[in-house]
C-alpha cells in the first residue's frame, strides 16, 4: 500500500466530514469564479464599448496633445502615413479625427460643444455613430397621435412619462413602453407610423451637414433639417465660424457626450478651424486585441511614425475609466477574499479536528517505525485530495454557467436598464470566458491548502509520542 492509497482510504474514514470540507471548497470556488467572470466580463464589455465606439485601441497624436488637447497641437496626417500604419498586419483600420471646441447657437440658445471631425466611411470601422442614429422619437405630436390609437392602457400612461425620449432601436422602446414580444407585431407598426424619425448618416461630399447628440438637439430645440451655428477659435488663433444643416441626431449612451457632441466630416472640420490637412489624432483598430498583440503592434508602429508623434494606448486615453474599474475590481477582490477567508476557516476547522482525532494513531505510527516525513506526506496527500476534489468540482460546475453567460449575457430590463444606459453602459452583464483568472482561483485555494498542510506537518513534527499514545 503506497502513501496515496493510504491517504485515499483515510479521507473516506469520515465520509461526511470529507464531503462537507470538499463542499465548502466547491462552493467558494464556484461562486468566486462566477463573481469574477461577471466582474471581468463587465469590464471587458465596457472597455470594448469605449474602445470600439470612441477611443480605438491606439491613437497617434502629436507629442503635446495628450497634456494640452488644443488644435495647435494637431499634426499633418497625410495618406502616406495612414497607408504605412494600415500596412501593419494587426491593424484593422486607421481613421483621422480632428476634435475641438466651439460655441453652438440656434435661435437665442447657445451651448458649448465638442466638434468631432470624422471620416464618415472609415469611422464605421471604429465607432458606432452610424448605429446610434435615432429611429424613434416621442415628440408631442407623436404622443398625441399615438394616444388616439388602440394601445394597451399602460403604454398610454408610459408615453407621457417618456415624452421627448429618443430611441435608436425597437428593443429599448418596447421595454420603456411596457410591451412584450407578443405585442410587437400589433403595436410596433403604430409606433413606426407616428413616432419614426427620419435620420441620415454623414456623407463626405455633403460638407455642410452634421450629426448632433440627442441631448444637444433637445437643449437647442433643433431637429433634422434645422441649422446650427458654430463659432470658435481655429488653428493658430484664426476665427472659426460656420452654419451647418442637421442631417442626423444620434443617441449617445453617455449623457455627458450626448449633450454636447457635434459630428461632421473631417474635411468640413478642417475648413471650420482653418486646419487644412491637420488631425488631432489617428484612431487605430486592431485585429488581435490581446495585450501581447497590442504591445507588439505598438512597438512596430512606434518605429514607422515620425519622431514628433507618439502612440497612446487605450488605457492612457481612458485613464479615468481604467482607474474606476481598477477600484471596482479591488472591491470585488475584497469580497472574494472574504469568501476565501470563510473557507480557510472551514478547512482549518477540519484540519484541527482531524489532528485531534488521530493524535494517538500518529503517535502509534511513529512508535512502530514510520518516519515523521512519511506520515506528514500521507496527511498532506489527504488534504490535497480533499481540496482538489472541491476545486475541480467548482471549476467543472462553473464552466457551463460562465460559457452560457458569455454567449447569452444577463440583460437588464426596465428601470435598471435605463439606469445603466444613463451611466453610459450597455444594460447587459456578460461573463468573461475562462481565462487566467480560473488559474488564479485554483492557486488561491492551493495556497490555503498549503498553509493547512504546513500547519499539519508542523503538528506532526512536534507531536509528543508518549503523551499522544495515552490520549
Amino acid at each position, binding site marked *: 500500500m503506497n502513501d496515496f492509497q493510504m491517504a485515499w482510504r483515510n479521507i473516506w474514514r469520515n465520509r461526511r466530514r470529507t464531503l462537507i470540507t470538499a463542499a465548502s471548497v466547491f462552493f467558494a470556488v464556484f461562486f468566486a469564479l462566477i463573481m469574477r467572470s461577471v466582474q471581468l466580463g463587465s469590464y471587458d464589455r465596457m472597455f470594448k464599448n469605449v474602445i470600439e465606439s470612441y477611443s480605438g485601441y491606439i491613437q497617434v497624436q502629436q507629442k503635446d496633445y495628450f497634456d494640452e488637447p488644443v488644435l495647435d497641437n494637431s499634426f499633418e496626417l497625410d495618406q502616406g502615413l495612414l497607408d504605412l500604419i494600415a500596412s501593419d498586419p494587426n491593424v484593422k483600420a486607421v481613421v483621422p479625427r480632428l476634435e475641438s471646441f466651439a460655441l453652438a447657437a440656434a435661435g437665442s440658445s447657445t451651448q458649448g460643444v465638442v466638434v468631432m471631425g470624422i471620416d464618415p466611411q472609415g469611422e464605421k470601422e471604429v465607432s458606432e455613430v452610424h448605429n446610434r442614429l435615432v429611429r424613434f422619437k416621442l415628440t408631442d405630436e407623436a404622443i398625441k397621435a399615438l394616444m388616439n390609437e388602440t394601445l394597451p392602457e399602460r403604454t398610454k400612461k408610459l408615453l407621457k412619462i417618456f415624452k421627448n425620449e429618443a430611441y435608436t432601436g425597437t428593443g429599448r422602446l418596447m421595454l420603456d413602453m411596457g410591451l412584450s414580444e407578443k405585442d410587437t407585431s400589433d403595436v410596433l407598426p403604430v409606433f413606426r407610423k407616428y413616432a419614426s424619425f427620419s435620420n441620415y448618416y454623414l456623407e463626405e461630399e455633403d460638407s455642410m451637414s452634421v450629426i448632433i447628440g440627442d441631448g444637444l438637439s433637445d437643449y437647442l430645440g433643433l431637429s433634422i433639417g434645422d441649422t446650427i451655428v458654430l463659432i470658435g477659435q481655429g488653428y493658430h488663433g484664426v476665427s472659426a465660424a460656420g452654419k451647418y444643416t442637421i442631417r442626423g441626431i444620434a443617441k449617445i449612451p453617455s449623457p455627458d457626450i450626448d449633450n454636447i457632441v457635434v459630428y461632421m466630416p473631417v474635411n468640413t472640420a478642417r475648413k471650420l478651424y482653418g486646419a487644412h490637412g491637420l488631425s488631432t489624432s489617428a484612431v487605430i483598430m486592431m485585429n488581435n486585441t490581446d495585450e501581447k498583440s497590442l504591445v507588439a503592434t505598438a512597438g512596430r508602429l512606434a518605429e514607422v511614425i515620425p519622431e514628433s508623434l507618439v502612440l497612446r494606448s487605450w488605457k492612457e486615453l481612458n485613464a479615468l475609466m481604467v482607474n474606476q474599474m481598477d477600484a471596482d475590481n479591488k472591491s470585488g477582490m475584497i469580497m472574494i477574499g472574504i469568501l476565501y477567508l470563510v473557507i480557510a476557516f472551514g478547512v482549518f476547522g477540519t484540519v484541527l479536528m482531524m489532528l485531534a482525532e488521530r493524535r494517538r494513531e500518529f503517535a502509534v505510527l511513529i512508535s512502530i517505525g514510520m518516519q515523521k516525513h512519511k506520515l506528514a506526506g500521507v496527511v498532506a496527500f489527504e488534504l490535497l485530495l480533499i481540496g482538489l476534489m472541491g476545486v475541480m468540482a467548482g471549476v467543472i460546475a462553473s464552466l457551463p454557467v460562465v460559457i452560457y453567460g458569455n454567449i447569452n449575457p444577463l440583460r437588464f430590463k426596465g428601470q435598471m436598464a435605463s439606469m445603466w444606459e444613463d451611466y453610459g453602459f450597455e444594460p447587459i452583464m456578460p461573463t468573461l470566458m475562462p481565462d487566467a483568472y480560473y488559474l488564479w482561483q485554483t492557486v488561491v485555494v492551493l495556497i490555503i491548502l498549503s498553509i493547512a498542510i504546513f500547519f499539519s506537518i508542523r503538528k506532526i513534527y512536534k507531536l509528543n509520542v508518549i503523551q499522544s*499514545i495515552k490520549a
Partner: protein
Amino acid sequence: MKVIEIKDVNKIYNSTEIKVHAVNGVSLDFDQGEFAAIVGPSGSGKTTLLNLLGGLDLPTSGKILIDGEDLSKLKSSQLIDFRLRNIGFVFQSYNLIPVLTAEENVGFIMALQKIDRKEREERTWSLLKAVGLGDRLNSRPAKLSGGQQQRVAVARALASRPKFVLADEPTANLDSKAAKTLLEIMEKLNREEKITFIFSTHDPRVVKMARRVITLEDGKVISDEVKKQSNDPENG
C-alpha cells in the same frame, strides 16, 4: 547473549511544582529469548521503563544499550528507524490502523522496511496463521474482536523480525479466553522462534506465565526473579 543492557537509568519528570522520579537507578540486562514481565503497582514506573526500552523516551541519566547501541546517541529520525528494525510494540488498546485490513496492518511494517512484496505477503500470511487469523486476512480492525485485534497487533510487532517485543498491558482489555489464547500464542512464538518478549502488566496470568518477573516500586527494582516452573497458564 545480551540483547538489552540498562545501566543505572534514571528518569525524572520536572512538572511545574513537583519532581517525579519515575525510574530510579535501574540496572537490568535481558538475554535473547527471554519471556519477562515487569510488574508493580500503578505509578511504579513500569510503563516509563518500557518507553525507555522502546526508545520512545530518553533517560535523564544512565544508558540503555540495545545490541551494544546506545539509544541516547541516536537522533529522532535514527531512533524511529532503529525501532522499525529492532523493536516490536504491542499496545494495551491494540492501536491497529483502522483503514487497513489485518493483512495490510501486518504488511505495513515490512513495507516501511522496503521488503519486497512477495516476501511481505508470505511472512504476513505465516504470521497471521501463527496467531490463528489465517482466515481473517481481509478484515478491517472494526470487524475483529478485541482479542483478534490484539493478535493482529502481535503479528504486526513480529513482522519486522525485531530483536525483542515490548508489550504494555497486552491483556488488559481482553476477556479471559482471549487473554489465554494471546498468551499461548506469544509463549509459543517465544519458545519456538526465540523471540524476546517483555511485558508490563498487572495481569496474574501473564505473571504466572513469565519465566522472569521484575518487580518495580517507586521507580526502583525491588525484585528480579527468574522462575524455573512450567509456562502453562492453566497449570500456574
